[in-house]
């Protein structure tokens, strides 16, 4: 054929060889290089971590809502982490909060979300046989696995896991004598994070390269589904921000274990002066938040991409403002790197610098609002089909609005002085980053489950799951705004000792009960997920009448995704309800020349071009 193929000979030969091989159990399910299996590995590991992270939140919600509760019956599980009186140990409480944050942000919403859907959808939606490097993809998962093992093991050691908050600010995290959680648990935390970063980089490099190099013929960047755009930009953000956390973590390792003072200076602990001089804990904050803020968008963007796809499909309308969506994601990507110090308004930052970061932060409202309006205008007057995935996507948009608005409050350096480190912040990021991304994850699972496992999830259970979770999330996090405005600080073990705060006990009890119910609802999902995997209704070829390429692959695609040639792409992925068309959707692989009835004027031109090309192609193959 042409030079085109010569360039890719390496992959094609490699992938074609593997088509219908009988694989051993180990190479199929464990050390698999197939992107689909790796995606499922990420998904299952992510769900496992999700369960642990959520159960931890249940434990500390018990403490916050029912401060005197006797948990003696949990002693077989919690052991020494309960006080003599059967209450949660204060240091264990700190460890719970820390691990809940770490697990949810990194292990569930970064690895679980990006790892699952980038891996699963990138090759299938751009029309590639697999990732650019299947081997590196496998390594990426296994580094994540090692990281998981290390992090998990820290829960079982005597001094307990890290307890300095998920941001692990020094000096607290740097000094083992400060709290129990800064001993071995903190070391394991850092080791786990180093492996985690390696995993993210291996994955991210692969995603970016695959999107650039392995798109099928006709799949220009402006014909990519928005999911792919979001995964691509997420990987770019991760590639540029995680190495900075890597550097920060290594410096912290040296401070903890080798006596340096990069982050330490002028410290008295237990009446004793430490020898460390000259370092700066603020330096750590800068390095951490240079990752920490982009991390928010690493968690957010894939969820938004998934939503774009699901909302367009299920309102049977083209996505409103496709290019504006891409533009706003690009804008968010760039801005995510220049706003980190808005987490540090009260760290003694120069107020002028604060106002610069405030300005940059507030600009993010613009691309975010563009996205929200585009979701709403896509839904507007659509033939909305309320699948569980649609509901979760709409729920996501709702959180994006309600959680995003409080972001404007917090982005103001002056208002932040009052609200900093209160439950207002907790409410804000749990809505806009936590719940939003979890909803993206759940929507994605409901939507692509048929492709992943060849079976359908139960829609009724999905609806129940959605309504309980959606209402539950608002009942949990909305009251927290009030608690926060009243000045409740986050991360406190108990407020009942303070007169000023004890007035809100009933509200906290309410939040805790809402949390328990919402967590209970997740078991409906877990049942639905695992039951449907084996007993669900068999999935049809294209259950949602969707346009993207993954639905042209076999119902349960093998290694290599398509039997025979990879489909070519002739149009963008959002030709839903196109005037004049027979059906209300035209998949991307349908040539324009076969749909003259619905082509727009400029598409007629392209259709002519297509026919010329195919006839030329036919001629050359004859000769």
């Amino acid at each position, binding site marked *: 054929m042409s030079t085109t193929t010569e360039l890719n000979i390496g992959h094609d030969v490699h992938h074609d060889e593997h088509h219908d091989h009988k694989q051993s159990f180990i190479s199929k399910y464990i050390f698999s290089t197939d992107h689909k299996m790796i995606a499922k590995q990420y998904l299952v590991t992510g769900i496992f971590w999700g369960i642990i992270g959520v159960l931890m939140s249940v434990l500390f919600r018990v403490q916050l809502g029912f401060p005197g509760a006797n948990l003696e019956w949990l002693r077989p599980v919690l052991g020494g982490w309960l006080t003599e009186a059967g209450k949660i140990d204060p240091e264990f409480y700190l460890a719970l909060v820390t691990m809940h944050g770490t697990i949810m942000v990194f292990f569930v919403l970064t690895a679980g979300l990006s790892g699952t859907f980038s891996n699963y959808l990138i090759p299938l939606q751009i029309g590639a046989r697999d990732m650019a490097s299947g081997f590196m993809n496998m390594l990426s998962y296994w580094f994540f696995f090692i990281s998981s093992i290390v992090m998990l093991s820290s829960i079982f050691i005597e001094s307990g896991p890290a307890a300095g908050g998920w941001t692990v600010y020094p000096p607290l995290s740097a000094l083992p004598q400060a709290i129990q959680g800064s001993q071995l648990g903190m070391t394991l935390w850092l080791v786990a994070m180093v492996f985690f970063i390696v995993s993210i980089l291996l994955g991210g490099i692969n995603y970016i390269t695959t999107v650039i*190099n392995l798109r099928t013929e006709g799949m*220009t*960047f402006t014909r990519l589904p928005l999911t792919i755009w979001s995964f691509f930009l997420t990987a770019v953000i991760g*590639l540029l921000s995680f190495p900075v956390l890597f550097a920060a973590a290594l410096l912290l390792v040296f401070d903890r274990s080798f006596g340096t*003072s990069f982050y330490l200076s002028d410290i008295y602990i237990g009446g004793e002066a430490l020898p460390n001089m000259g370092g700066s804990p603020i330096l750590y904050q800068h390095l951490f938040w240079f990752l920490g803020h982009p991390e928010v968008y690493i968690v957010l963007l894939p969820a938004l991409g998934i939503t774009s796809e699901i909302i367009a499909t299920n309102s049977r309308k083209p996505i409103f403002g496709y290019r504006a969506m891409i533009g706003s994601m690009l804008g968010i990507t760039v801005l995510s790197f220049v706003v980190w110090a808005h987490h540090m308004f009260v760290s003694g930052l120069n107020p002028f610098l604060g106002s610069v970061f405030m300005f940059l932060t507030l600009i993010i409202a613009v691309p975010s609002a563009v996205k929200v309006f585009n979701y709403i205008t896509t839904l507007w007057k659509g033939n909305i089909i309320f699948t569980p995935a649609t509901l979760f996507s709409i729920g996501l948009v709702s959180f994006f609005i309600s959680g995003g608005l409080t972001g404007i409050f917090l982005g103001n350096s002056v208002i932040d002085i009052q609200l900093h480190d209160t439950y207002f912040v907790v409410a804000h990021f749990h809505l806009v980053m936590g719940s939003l991304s979890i909803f993206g994850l759940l929507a994605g699972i409901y939507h692509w489950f048929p492709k992943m496992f060849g079976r359908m999830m139960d829609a009724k259970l999905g609806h129940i799951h959605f309504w309980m979770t959606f209402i539950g999330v608002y009942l949990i996090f909305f009251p927290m705004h009030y608690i926060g405005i009243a000045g409740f600080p986050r991360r406190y073990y108990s407020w009942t000792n303070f007169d000023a705060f004890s007035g809100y006990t009933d509200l906290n009890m309410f939040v805790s009960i809402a949390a328990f119910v919402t967590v209970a609802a997740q078991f409906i999902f877990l049942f639905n997920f695992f039951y449907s995997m084996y007993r669900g209704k068999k999935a049809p070829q294209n259950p949602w009448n969707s346009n993207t390429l993954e639905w042209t692959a076999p119902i349960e695609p093998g290694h290599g995704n398509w039997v025979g040639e990879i489909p*070519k792409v002739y149009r963008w992925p959002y030709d839903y309800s196109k005037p004049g068309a027979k059906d209300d959707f035209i998949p991307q692989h349908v040539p324009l020349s076969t749909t003259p009835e619905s082509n727009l004027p400029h598409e007629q031109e392209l259709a002519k071009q297509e026919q010329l090309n195919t006839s030329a*192609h036919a001629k050359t193959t004859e000769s």
Partner: protein
Amino acid sequence: MATTATMDTAKSRWGGGMAPMNTSYGKLMMWFFLLSDAFSFSALLITYGLIRYSHPAYSGSVADFEFSTEYWPIPEMVFEALPFLHGVHAPLIFVGIMTFILILSSVTMVLAVEAGHRMDRKGVIKWMLWTIIGGLAFLGCQAWEWSHFIHGTDEGTMTAAGEVIYGANLTINQYGPPLFASLFFFITGFHGFHVFSGVVINFIIFFNAVVGTYDKRGHYEMVEKSGLYWHFVDLVWVFVFTLFYLI
């Protein structure tokens, strides 16, 4: 395919079905890895800058300079020794030689890549060997420099507490504030580890070239990929050198 002729414009190269920049996935991955690694080094060098400027600088004349933990030292007074020439004041000569060796090894790397393009196995073997030798020589020099830095000068430095300290480690430092030594060890160590990995990678490439792996494969692209990495490590050294030794 006749269509390629009409499609071979810059615009349609991004149209899918081909590598848009005419670059293999492996080479692209190396570029992205280097981009990300550049950010880890940037983070460390910014750390260096911030900590350095939070310490007072030496304000007197160069001739009167004495080591003290009170101010950041002048680099040319710290890095002034040469092996076998005890007591000779040769500011920045040794590190200059080190830098020259590393840059020279980049040149030999370029020649190896070029030989690879011509499918000249012997040329690749020769120039890879020189590159490896250059890398090892740099690491050897660094080992000597570290060792000298750790052992310190004959006189040592008197601290405010009246105690004389010699050399430096991660917690004490005769040349200046302890963080000067910590940063020196951390950042040149981090870079040295990159050089070391580079030497290992280069050795694997060298070995594969010797046993003819790339001739069988039909191209020497691996040489090019490791070359990218090697040049990057060199480039980073230029920044490390500037910050630690020149400014």
